[in-house]
C-alpha cells in the first residue's frame, strides 16, 4: 500500500534518517530523544531502536525536535535493536 502511494518510505514508517558527511559530521532526522551524551559516545532513541554514534570530541551542533547534528571525529555508527 505504501509503495502504491509513492510516498517516501521513511516518512510513512517513521524511520530515522542518518546523513553522514565523511567522519566529521552526522545529521540525524526523525529521532525520538537523546539517551546519553558524552564526548565519546552518543545514544539516540529512534522508532526502530537505539542509534549509537561513537568517536571522539563529539559535539551537538544543533538540537531540535526533528534535527540532531553531531560534529566531531566519528569512528562508528551502529543500531541496537
Amino acid at each position, binding site marked *: 500500500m505504501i509503495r502504491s502511494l509513492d510516498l517516501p518510505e521513511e516518512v510513512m514508517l517513521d524511520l530515522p534518517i542518518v546523513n553522514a558527511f565523511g567522519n566529521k559530521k552526522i545529521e540525524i532526522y526523525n529521532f525520538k530523544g537523546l539517551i546519553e551524551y558524552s564526548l565519546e559516545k552518543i545514544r539516540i532513541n529512534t522508532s526502530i531502536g537505539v542509534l549509537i554514534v561513537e568517536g571522539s570530541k563529539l559535539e*551537538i551542533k544543533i538540537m531540535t525536535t526533528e534535527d540532531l547534528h553531531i560534529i566531531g571525529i566519528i569512528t562508528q555508527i551502529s543500531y541496537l535493536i
Partner: protein
Amino acid sequence: MKYRCKGGRFLLISIWNYLRGYVMIEVSGFSVERFLNLVAHRDIYIWDIERQGNKLSMKISIEGYKMLKPCARKTGCKVRIKDKRGLPFIKHKYRKRKMIPIGMVIFIALIYMISSFVWLIEIEGNKKIDSQEIVDRLDQDGYKIGGLKKKMDLREAEQMLMRDFPDVLWTGISFEGTKLIVKITEVVPEPKLIDYNSPTDIVANSDALILDIVTRKGTPMVRKGDTVRKGDILVSGEIPLADEWDEESKVSYTRSSADILAKTHYTVETQIPLKKNVKKYTGAIKKKYSIRIIDKEIKLHNSKIDFRNYDYTIKSRQLQATSKFPLPFYIVLKEYIEYIPKSQIISDELAQDTLRVMLHDLLAEETHINAEIIKQEVKFNKKGGIMGGRLQAIVKEELGEEKSIIINDGRNKVNDNEQSEH
C-alpha cells in the same frame, strides 16, 4: 563543495545570532540528556552543545533562556549563565547614555548640512581667460563659495558664461562633492591668413646703408652701397611689363620678396641712481596662525608684531574631508619678516657695469634677432647722484618690412589671368 556552502550558511547564522543576542549557559545535573530532550521538545532552539566533564555548555537564544526554568526544575538540573553575547546586551549596557545616538544624529545632520553647500570652485581648461574673472562673474549671480547647491541652476550658469564670455565655446558645470567644477573650452583663434596674392613693397624700417641685396620677387629700387632713409622703398611690387608691339607700358603687381643686409645705426640711453634703498633682513620671523571659517578669521594667539618694518607672506590651506569634499575651514599662516631699511651708495664702476648690461638688453630689443654688432661705443656721465649711459652701435642686420600696395584707380592693374587674355 556542499561543505563550503554550509560554512557560508553558518557564518550567516552566526551573524543573525549575534544580532538577536544569545546566552552561553552551563547545565549540570543527574540527567542532562533528559533536559536536552525536554528543551528540544518545547521547540527551544539550542546549539553548540559540548560536554565538559559532567557539565554541558551550550548556546541558547534570549527568548529560549526565559523558557528554560521549568525544564531545569523538572529534570533537576542546574543552569548557570557563563556569558551573554550579542547586540541586545550591548544596547542594554549603553541604554542610559542617550547622548550617543543623539550625537550620531547631529553628526550625520551636520555632514549633510555642510555637504549641501559649495566650498570650492575649480575652473579647468581656461588658457586665455583669467580664472578670477570667471569666478567673479559666477559670484555676481550667486554661484559662490558658501552658496547652497540646491539654489544653483547649473544649466543657467553655463548659458550665462557662454553669453558673457565670447571666447568661451562650451562650458560644463557640475558638482563633485562640495566642489563646483567649471570646465571650459575656449574658442580657438582663427589663424591669420596671409594672402600671398596681395601685392607688397619692401620698405626700410630705419636709416641704413645697404650692404647686400638679393631680390627674389619684385623690382629692386636700391643697390649695394646705397644709403636709405626710413620709409624708402627698397623693393617694389610693381613689375613693368615690356610690350614690344604696344607702346603703352603695363604694370603687374606682385608680393615682393628679398633678402637685404644693411648697416644701421642705433643709439640707446638709460640711467640709474647711485643711491639705492636696500632691505636688510634681520632674520627675525614671526609666525601667526589663524583659522578662517568662510569669511571670519579667528586668531589663535594675540601677540603683537613689534617690528618697525616688515614684509609678510600669507599661506592658506583649505581643510578637506576627502579630495571631493573640501570643507569651509582654512588654516592661515602669516609670516612676518623684519627688515631694516638702508640706503646704499653704489660705486661708479658697479653702476657702469650694470648700465652696460642694461644698454645691451635695450639694444637687443630694438635690433633684429640675427643682428651682428660691428662697432659700439658707450659713454657715461654722472650728474647729481644719477649715472647715465649712452650706447651708440653700428649693427649689421636684415632690413625691410612688408607694406601692402594700395593701387590707385588711375593705374591699371594687370593680373596673371588678364595677361593671358591679352
